[in-house]
């Protein structure tokens, strides 16, 4: 297993993880919007990539994000039974088991990837998820593959 955290970074608690969140347009992206409308604050570490459905999320989307240096990847879709496209999220759920295995095989902590169900009405849950995930990834430390260059 690749160890990615230096004690120094942990100790100073200055590490700000970058988390990529793939959100489906209909539920979780809308949930994130509702967190905004409701002014539920959460850490600034997440960057959302919108797709129409979690069913669209190819395993490579998750793996490439990690390879490119994301410290964590969230996949968020509609609750089971609530998919705008009936069963895209079920397909994602099945796929996610394989993704998790692949992530582990490569040598990442499996906790760096997450699959969550967030409905359009769960702004609070979205904010809580980002708070919780940011803290967890902060504990794990930076992605060992990380080559990120801070933008000017």
């Amino acid at each position, binding site marked *: 297993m690749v160890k990615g955290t230096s004690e120094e970074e942990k100790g100073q608690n200055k590490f700000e993880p*970058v988390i*990529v969140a793939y959100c489906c*347009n*209909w539920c979780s*992206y*809308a949930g*994130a*919007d*509702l*967190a*905004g*409308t*409701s*002014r*539920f*604050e*959460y850490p*600034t570490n997440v*960057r*959302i*990539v*919108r*797709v*129409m*459905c979690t*069913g*669209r*999320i*190819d*395993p*490579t*989307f998750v793996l*490439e*994000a990690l390879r*490119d*240096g*994301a410290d964590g990847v969230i996949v968020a879709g509609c*609750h*089971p039974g*609530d998919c*705008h*496209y009936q*069963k*895209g999220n079920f*397909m994602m759920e099945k*796929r996610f088991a394989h993704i998790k295995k692949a992530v582990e095989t490569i040598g990442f902590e499996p906790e760096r990837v997450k699959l969550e*169900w967030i*409905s*359009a*009405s*769960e*702004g*609070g*849950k979205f*904010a809580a998820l980002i708070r919780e995930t940011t803290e967890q990834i902060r504990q794990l430390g930076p992605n060992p593959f990380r*080559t*990120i*260059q801070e*933008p*000017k």
Partner: protein
Amino acid sequence: MSEKPRIGVFICHCGINIGGVVNVPELTEYAKTLPNVVYAEHNLYTCSEAGLTTIEKAIKEHNLNRVVVASCTPRTHEPLFKAKCRESGLNPYLFEMANIRDQCSWVHMHEPEKATKKAKDLIRMAVAKAALLEPQTEPEVEVKDASLVVGAGIAGITAALSMANQGFKVYLIEKEKELGGLTSKLYKLYPTLADSSEVIDPLIEAVKSHGNIELMTSTDLKDVSGYIGNFTAALTGPDGDKEVNVGTIIVASGASNYTPPKGLYQYGIYDHVVTQRELDEMLKKGKIGEPERIVMIQCVGARKGEIRPFELEAFPKSDTAELLRKILKARKEEGWPYCSRICCMNAIKNAILVKESSPKTDIVVLFGDLRVYKEYEDFYKRARDLEVRFVRHIEEAPPEITRTSEGKLQVMAYDSLSGLEVKFLADWVVLSTPIIPNKDEVLLARMLKVPIGTDGFMMEAHLKLRPVDTNVDGVFIAGTVSGPKDVSESIISGEAAAGRASILMGNRKVKTDAITALADEDLCVGCGLCEEICPYGAPKIENGKSKIREILCRGCGTCAAECPSQAITMRHYKDHQVLAQVKALLMPAGMKEAEVPNG
């Protein structure tokens, strides 16, 4: 043929919504440094007429072939900007949005520097995707010239009549035996004090005798499938099950009255503690007589309890009904957090009605806040002139009700001006209670895929811009299903929803999204997995190759992710377009000047 992207970036202040947190001028300067960006500017409101005009001007002056708007959520504003692109001669699919309000300034309002940094990332990601976008052509679908109206209260009836009068076939279903909903249960309407029957009865008659309306009472909506223009609704009623095919759906299933839990202000314990609805009933039957004093208490079960998302963490779905029951039970005890907007006028109306039949009766209205808007200010003055007393009490110390040995009710409250205790002996205590969502509203919303707001009512697509649309194309909402409304407001929303639906049905056709799947014959091995997993039956294997019928494709992209030979791509969400955002985020130095195919 290929062309170099020439991207214009428009960054919105959204008044102070974005500009008050993130540094918009800094973002604009930053955007100008990004690859492929040839123009950037910031606007007070990019969605305003002035903002849209600047987009059009910039497209022409700077020969832009891609547009990025960094503002609010694409879920509400993308159509507006896309339409402007189209108008300006740019294919609307060469447009991308960065959400720097809902997902940035609104949630990081105390971290302006970090929020600005995040906004830069989001803009960079959008620019990277925009550079790779391709023009698309939207397929057209036929719209069936028939509509399903769910609920025959005043809003549903109004909508049904409006569409039927325009020549459209309307299926009007009502779960109760009788038509008229909440309106037909009322006695008089404010502020005219007309009998509600004068308003609703002629409408009910008109609906019953209209040749274009097929009315089905005691009928429930069991399931809905299909999409805009072509829905199939499964109904179940006294004559068994039935399916109807419609182009549009209007949900006007109404709302309920809050019943206080037993013991709240002694309701259910003392006979003479009643709700306004019950007083209404007594007035209608002439049973109120000439009491010495009536005390009304406002906001009973309204503007109480915590505002929180109406969260149904239903997993698995079979538990939803049970969970919903629990939420509603908790709300009954705790109260509902919103202002029900009609209760003040309703109390004033009943006070006036009592005063008119029994001038000697003293009426005291205990309120925390009195909200009488538009012409209702006069209505309030009329009550004051009739010597109805309005006493503002301290809401944090709710009135207490006891019974005296003579059998009268004693109401004790704290006057907010003097801070002193005030006591009233009353014959009746009348509780003003809110309109609340129907107990099955969430289930109906889920069936239709319409979201529920924090107040438990169905949510409009946009509170200001699309007040009767829902997030589901072709499904509209009217009346109290989306929140408390009085009769005239319900009629307005019924007419509005009918108007919106009629536009679709009148045009006969609607353009649907071009975000559909495309199979590459050369790569396809004809395994048939796409055919197997698609819920819409869009892919079909013909001569050993997958063909995707785009009109059936809804654009989820599951087949694109599942296809083992990577033969299927999703228009507008191709792998490299999605991943360009991730790469731009994580490896900004690697962003390049792009060359893209020119459709």
